[in-house]
């Protein structure tokens, strides 16, 4: 190995550069998986041509196409806000990746408050949605933005609350600490609480992604592409495709970290320890991504009121009860069971 003498901020820059390179790459892979998995779930083939082998280069071709597309800003739009909105969506997405522990030591920036940071940063993108929708000067965009904001705020709560359950059980907000605190059989322990918290987190996560069946904010049959109706070219990519797919991976990664034991081996067998944690993390995250891809073509879109009802009348009460249960478990569970 070579030795490099880098100061702290230089290391930080290198890490940022790596993240900025790797996140889009992972997004491309996940986007391609989305095309293919969804196609096969629907008896289709998905992209077959670009790149030769099963259309592996489809998204590269798509990206090229979007780069070459004209960047249109509507005449009546608020230009400044309109151009900044994709940034306000894209940057928080990248920033969330920084704290995900891919392995025991493989984490860009290990924060004491990892979980809190993650939840805080990911909540910023809501503003980007509102900016995009309002500045487009388009009623569909505005309706889409308001729907998106209402949905993101509503589902932020069950996400935070169910993540709090994980933090309570682990006794820390550090993501590494949460992973370490989990033991086989991860989700199923403590009985009931873990699994339900995981399901609540997962359900709210699907809604946070504004993916089907919770894609009212971008329901194309009513409001075209919602807040991004007026976007084109790279701005469109950075405000819709990229955050959606990247967030899909990130939510899966967070769910893996919080509930599925992160980089720990799936079953506690001695010889499996030889496998690097990154592999386990990748496997589990890929499984979660597959679940998300599986859900998408399976269920029909909810109505806006059903969507809100699901959040406020089902997920939030459930997660509040879970918090009580988790507290009781932490305080009163016999020492042998914990």
């Amino acid at each position, binding site marked *: 190995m070579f030795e490099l003498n880098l100061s702290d901020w230089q290391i930080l820059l290198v890490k940022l550069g790596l993240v900025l390179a790797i996140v889009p790459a992972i997004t491309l892979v996940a986007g391609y998986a989305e095309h293919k*998995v969804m*196609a*096969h*779930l*629907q*008896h*289709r*083939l998905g992209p*077959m041509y670009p790149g030769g082998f099963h259309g592996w280069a489809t998204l590269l071709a798509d990206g090229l196409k979007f780069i070459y597309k004209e960047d249109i800003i509507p005449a009546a739009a608020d230009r400044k806000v309109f151009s900044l909105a994709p940034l306000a969506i894209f940057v928080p997405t990248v920033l969330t990746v920084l704290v995900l522990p891919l392995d025991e030591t493989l984490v860009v920036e290990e924060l004491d408050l990892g979980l809190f940071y993650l939840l805080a940063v990911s909540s910023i993108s809501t503003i980007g949605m509102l900016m995009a929708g309002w500045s487009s000067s388009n009623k569909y965009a505005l309706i889409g933005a308001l729907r998106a904001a209402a949905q993101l705020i509503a589902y932020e709560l069950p996400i935070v609350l169910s993540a709090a359950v994980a933090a309570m059980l682990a006794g820390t907000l550090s993501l590494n600490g949460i992973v370490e605190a989990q033991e086989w059989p991860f989700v199923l322990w403590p009985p009931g609480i873990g699994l339900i918290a995981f399901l609540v987190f997962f359900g709210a996560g699907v809604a946070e992604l504004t993916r089907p069946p919770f894609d009212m904010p971008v329901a194309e049959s009513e409001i075209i592409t919602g807040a991004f109706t007026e976007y084109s070219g790279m701005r469109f990519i950075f405000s819709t495709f990229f955050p959606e797919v990247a967030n899909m991976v990130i939510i899966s990664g967070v769910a893996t970290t919080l509930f599925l034991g992160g980089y720990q081996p799936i079953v506690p067998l001695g010889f499996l320890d030889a496998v690097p944690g990154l592999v386990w993390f990748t496997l589990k995250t890929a499984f979660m991504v597959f679940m998300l891809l*599986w*859900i998408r*073509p*399976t*269920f029909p879109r909810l109505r806006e009121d059903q969507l809100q009802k699901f959040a406020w009348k089902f997920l939030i009460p459930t997660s509040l009860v879970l918090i009580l249960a988790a507290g009781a478990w932490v305080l009163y569970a016999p020492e042998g069971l914990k």
Partner: protein
Amino acid sequence: MLDERKLSAARKRTYGIGLLKGMAVTLKHLFKHNTVIEYPDEKQDLGPRTRGVIALKEENCTVCMLCARECPDWCIYIDSHKETLPPKREGGRPRKRNVLDRFAIDYALCMYCGICVEVCPYDALFWSREFEYAEYDIRQLTHEKEKLSDWMATVLPPPALEAGAEQPGQPVAATPAAAAPAPTAVAPAPTAVAPAVQPAGATTPTPAPSMSAPAETTEADKARLPAPPAHPAPRATTDPEAAGRSPEVPTTGQETVLSDQEKAVYQEDPGPNVDVPAEQPQPVALERSEDAEAVYQQVLKEQLDKGSSAQVAEARARVARAKAERGIKRGPTPLTVDKPVPSAPTKGAPRPEPSGAPEAKAPQPDPGPVAAPAEAGAAGSDEAETSAPAAAKEPAAEEPPSAEPVSTPDPQAAAPAVGGSDETPDQVFERVLQEEKAKGSSDAVAQGRAKAARVKAERAQK
């Protein structure tokens, strides 16, 4: 009855199970083989009636504009001009015919409703299965008539008739006149369409002339003239191409299936150059007009006697009754022969007149109107003089199709004179102006018509 409470209770019991079931369904499909046809590499066998592209049989087009008018998208563009043909016989009337200059369909606008194909009374438009005509430039999607004609080669034959359906050509074959078409049947059919178009074609397949022979059409038109003017035979799916058809064989070239009503029309007033079918189904029209119900019964009986299926017979009888009722209501008012249709029969249109065509069938119960279009069409022919007496009986007679255009009140009728006389355009202008004034037209109208006549005359000179 569904008990709502039970239902909701059942829903509650299975809360979440439905979601899992749905997931199971999609998962099952993940492992099934795909059903995709990888289009450019493999092609699906499209149904024979696929609406791919509309083909134009140019020779059949009479520029009646029905397709352009009915098109919901207004994607059909038709330009035409009138040509004056010399009279066929000495002393006859010069004839006019529409010549198609441009026929274009803008497939960028077309929504493939097929209405143009449906309304075309002369079978000039067909569906073809071809669909791969995408272009890089949207302007290329406007297919001009050459391209539209090229699609004709890809038009499939019509589907076989239903069992028990009336075979095309049967009634015609029953007439003595049917003997005549024999020679035409022998003629080779140059287009891919013709043979296939008539499944029962043994008796009547009409030879289609080569589609790319506009030059011949003048001759062909002459030959086609005697075709029954009032009966475009919309049911005939073949191309009723008349080239090589003798003037004496009016109906046979088309495997035209004449319904009884139609035949009845012939018999009432066959027109000068229509061979009356020998079958003589009795000119019952006069009686029929008395009572719609009687008409119904009569037609039903006739049809059944003829061997039509019960359904067909009933349908025709109903049509007859409806027409009879309408005819009674309307009374023997003249049909709109004097309506200034683009190519009124009086101008010697060599083809059956579209505007007259539908009406010709209508007035079956009422002999009065029936004769009008039939004659009007006939009057346009070179044998117009022979029909003059008949025409005189009709309201249309106020516009006698004589060779003397000076007296014609029809504004458009001014035109025939142009080709026929040696007047200079200015003379034509003056003359028409005088005529119009004499007729009592307003100054503006008279001026306009006169100018139009002059322009036509100028064009004719060139």
